């Protein structure tokens, strides 16, 4: 059976469809669900084997990237997300979604709320830049990056265990032969889906 992936949606998230397309291509059964719907149907979380927090500008980046989306998650879904993590299911946060994960305090190394020990801040030039980058992945036990030896056209900012947090967008590099892309971003999703399928 295809693993079911929950793609969180909130006002301002804009790469939900992109990551949905990548997950479909990698063999998952993705569902984009708005947080407002989840608020009334919290048990939905348990129907899924993967959790994805996609990129975009949640709440227009008001008060900082991912900040208010993180507040949503910490306020409404703390137990559900913790249970998700404890049951060993893979979690991925991309770009704004990664910032959301970090700021929600739910990642290992961060505790919920004010005692946070890590955060993400501006790049050196303090501005948005759209640029293709190549990255070789360090050898790691991260289920998302495991076994990928070729260069992936996007840098990975954080990779550990069942979590993958990254700033660039592998979901926009799933077809070879386009605009500087080679399709290598799909490898990450295939790894995650393969892992989730055997849960």
């Amino acid at each position, binding site marked *: 059976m295809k693993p079911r992936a929950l793609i969180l949606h909130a006002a301002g998230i804009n790469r939900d469809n992109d990551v949905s397309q990548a997950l479909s291509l990698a063999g998952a059964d993705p569902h984009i669900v*708005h947080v407002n719907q989840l608020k009334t149907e919290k048990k939905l979380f348990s129907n899924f084997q993967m959790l994805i927090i996609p990129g975009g500008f949640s709440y*227009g980046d008001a008060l900082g990237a991912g900040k208010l989306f993180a507040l949503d998650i910490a306020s409404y879904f703390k137990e559900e997300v913790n249970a998700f993590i404890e049951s060993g299911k893979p979690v991925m946060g991309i770009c704004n979604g990664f910032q959301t994960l970090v700021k929600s305090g739910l990642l290992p190394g961060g505790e919920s709320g004010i005692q946070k020990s890590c955060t993400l801040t501006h790049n050196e030039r303090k501005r948005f830049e759209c640029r293709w980058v190549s990255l070789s992945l360090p050898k790691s036990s991260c289920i998302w990056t495991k076994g990928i030896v070729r260069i992936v056209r996007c840098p990975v900012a954080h990779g550990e265990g069942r979590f993958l947090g990254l700033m660039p967008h592998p979901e*926009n590099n799933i077809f070879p032969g386009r605009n*500087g892309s080679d399709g290598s971003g799909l490898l990450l999703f295939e790894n995650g889906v393969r892992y989730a399928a055997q849960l």
Partner: protein
Amino acid sequence: MPMEIGQNIFRFTIKELQPGGKSSAVIVRNAQRIGLDKVCAVHESDMYFVRGNIAPGELDLLGRFLFSDPVLTAFSVEELPCKAEPGVQYIEVGYHVGVTDSVAEEIVRAARELGVTGVEAAATGKRYAILCRDGMSLQNEELARLAEKVLVNPVVQRYAIGPITPAFPDESAPRIPSEFFNIHEMNDEELSALNLRQRSALSMEELHAVRDYFRAENRPCSDAEYEMIAQTWSEHCIHKTFKAKIRVEGGEEEGLPPVVDNILLSYIKSATDAISAPWVVSAFKDNAGILAFDEEHEISFKVETHNHPSAIEPFGGANTGVGGVIRDILGVSAKPIAVTDVLCFGLDDRKDFSLENQSLQTLHIQDGVIGGVQDYGNKMGIPTVNGGIHYHEHYMSNPLVYCGCAGIAPKGSHPSAQKIGDRIFVIGGKTGRDGIRGATFSSMTMNNATFEHAGSSVQIGAPLVEKKVTEIILSTRDKKLYSAITDCGAGGLSSAVGEMTSDLGGEIEISKVPLKYAGLAPWEIWLSEAQERMVLAIPTENAAEFIALCEANDVEYCDIGYFSGTGRLVVRYFGDVIIDLECSFLHKGIPQRQLIARPAIRKAVNNEAAMLKKAILEQACRSEGNIFFENLLIGVLRHHAVHAKEHAIRLYDHEVQGATVVGPFAGYSQTGPSDAAVLAPAEVKSGQGIVISNGFNPRYGEADSYNAAFSAFDEAVRNAVACGADPERIAVIDNFCWGDPKNPENMYTLLRSAQACREAALIHHSPFVSGKDSFNNEFIDEKGNRRAIPPSLLISAIGLVPDVHKAVTADFKEAENSIYLVGEFCPVLSASVAAQLLDASFSEQTAVGKAKLDFSGGTGPLPSRKAPQLYRALHRAMQNSLIASCHDISDGGLLTAIAEMCIAGERGASISLEKLKLSGSAWDAVLTLFGETNGSLVVEVKQGKEEDFIKEMGSNECVKIGAVGESNKNLDLKITGQTLLSFSLGAIKTAFHVQSIAGGVR
């Protein structure tokens, strides 16, 4: 209306934990540029204000959870009034009351989510602490200068030297009644006075028509009725110049008739009708042009301008320009898939071709506009895939901002079937004074007073709201909940509801429209151009489901009335009738405008100057040798018309939606320019792609508006074809930006331009499907000098690539592949980039020739009438996979095109022009290498495919000019037997990407 001090207002100040914080290099640099050399550091911190009954513990919660990040920042909180901090110089900045502050809205929402329910209102601000060298300090006058020139846009912001008090709207403002004018009894003088007082930009004939209408109804006119008529009849909304009757003087020689009755019908729509392409689904009817695409989908396209608002508030103007054109695509029920923008900025010094020393004023406009485009497109999740940035000294106070958007929708999903009884809903943003009288204002010439009057009418975008609206519209479309839809743009509800009810009439009640703040007069609610709103017709049986969807997605909605079937539009405010107008008068009652067109006196051709130019070039070439050509190529690549402009383009997200097959940069390393964008939207299963391209050139426009229009058309089509578009499936959109139409010379250049549009459309077989015009792009400065922009026609093309895998890019692909020059290659130096450089470098050398020695003079590149045939042959060659890369010849000419292909492919090339049989003169060499032309491209043909390629080219001109080189090798060039040149790839790449062109994007 600032609140009185000490009323439960708390201020949070956020400081960076990093010792000393980070100083803003851009602000310090700009402070020094206005003469404040002693400023050595400026520390910026965020401030947030909240008002309400908030307990100390709750304030702490807000500070920790909302306003600060424990790893990076700390906060302090105090109740107003705040004491000035001793020993520190600082300026605090906040918004004027009523200006959209979307962060403040999120604060109120998030505070409630945290359980802090006492927060009634919020505001944001910035604090700038200023440090000077050697213990010096700034005088109050200097602080004010720093604030006004560097930190603040006075149109939307205010500042204080020391602590600022936030401005919250006064919610207890009383309801404002309608005013009535006895227009039915007014004489001409009184009508003029009314026109001036209401800033309505109506002519005397139009005022008479209004008076006569109210005379017939024997009643006074309400302020709302007057404003609605002025808006509906504004140039912006009804295009009265394009529909005018024009008497043409002296146009016989150039094929113009003595009278042109309606430019739009005579030249633009008539071309579309004559072409009668079966794949045009909707042209000039809906908010955007709609085209057939494949078995399942239709595509749509719209491009418009947002010039006047961008002149006044560059960020907000460009921001809402993008937001507005996206709503046009939503207004045809399509999903927006790409944004394109063409921006025109001023030059401080017309000889500063690499823009090394732009003034603060210019940078302010440029950075604001680019930032505004970036903010909206990126936040909407729509890739900005194509566009251009152009410079001309006359765009100084008249920046042009052309914004375009393309969309895709399932076939036949755009309904226009509103019926009597259907409810009228407005959804999205709240209504404020934003953009009041924007439609009439954008139909006027600007002067310094314009900036003062603009005040509250500046539009600020909220892309987050539009993103939510987009999602709602696409899901309600798929559920078939609405019977008609339109966007709320210029003219606000007045325009949107007015147009939607223009046949049936409607009964409207506006008292429930959600407002940003109290105190709006009813006519202001009706006319407001507040952003992010759409108007939908919802059959009563669908209303409940529609409302539920809006609520689930936090989208504001309001049921404002229904279609009545009476043919009159009746608008009420708390039950009182404020408008009761005959729809036919409103939409068809405007008298036709009468204008005159007359050509400017032509300059005589100076043969002596032609000789002199040749002699000068010969001499320079002899004395400088190869260096002469090297310098010219480097100069052209650094020139603002050619340069990569990465500093701006990389700020745009080109990749979101995952559909970008060809983006703004070509090649593996994305270092060269692309001709057009190619998209493969995820929902498309047929393998087809969409091409978007533009053609625009202000130098050509200034030289000759007829040739320029032909060139713009050719360039747009050529760019699309270069990337793989089928030339039989390209549609175009026109955007005319001109000066004052009452000036007969402006009308003449406009007519010539329209005439060329028609001819070009017919020969290329590319119909117009939509268009816009913007007049009065003139500015009267404080000295009373009138400055008009050059005739500026943008042609934007949308096309179809039969198979996205066969899309072609501009980067050289493989060593030993042959390079061909194809098409009717007729280079001219007139109006070229190289000519500007030559004019600049020789003007000082030759005192005699200063006036005569005009390399730029003349009428620009001529139309290429063989181009359509070439483009069809080239497309066949691409479909047969014969072509490895392709790039059009435009700004900078042939050598520039080849250099760009080398840069994109990171390869050298070996070029020989011997087959072109040049005379050997310096003039011929310069003309061939740098002259600009229409209808020509450079093509890399795959090995083993040359014979097939030549066969496919048939009778089209096609000359082999060299071969692609190895990676990172030189671009070698043989002009004639004797002249051998070699350019290092590094040098041309550096020139093309030179950083000094960059402004300090904030």
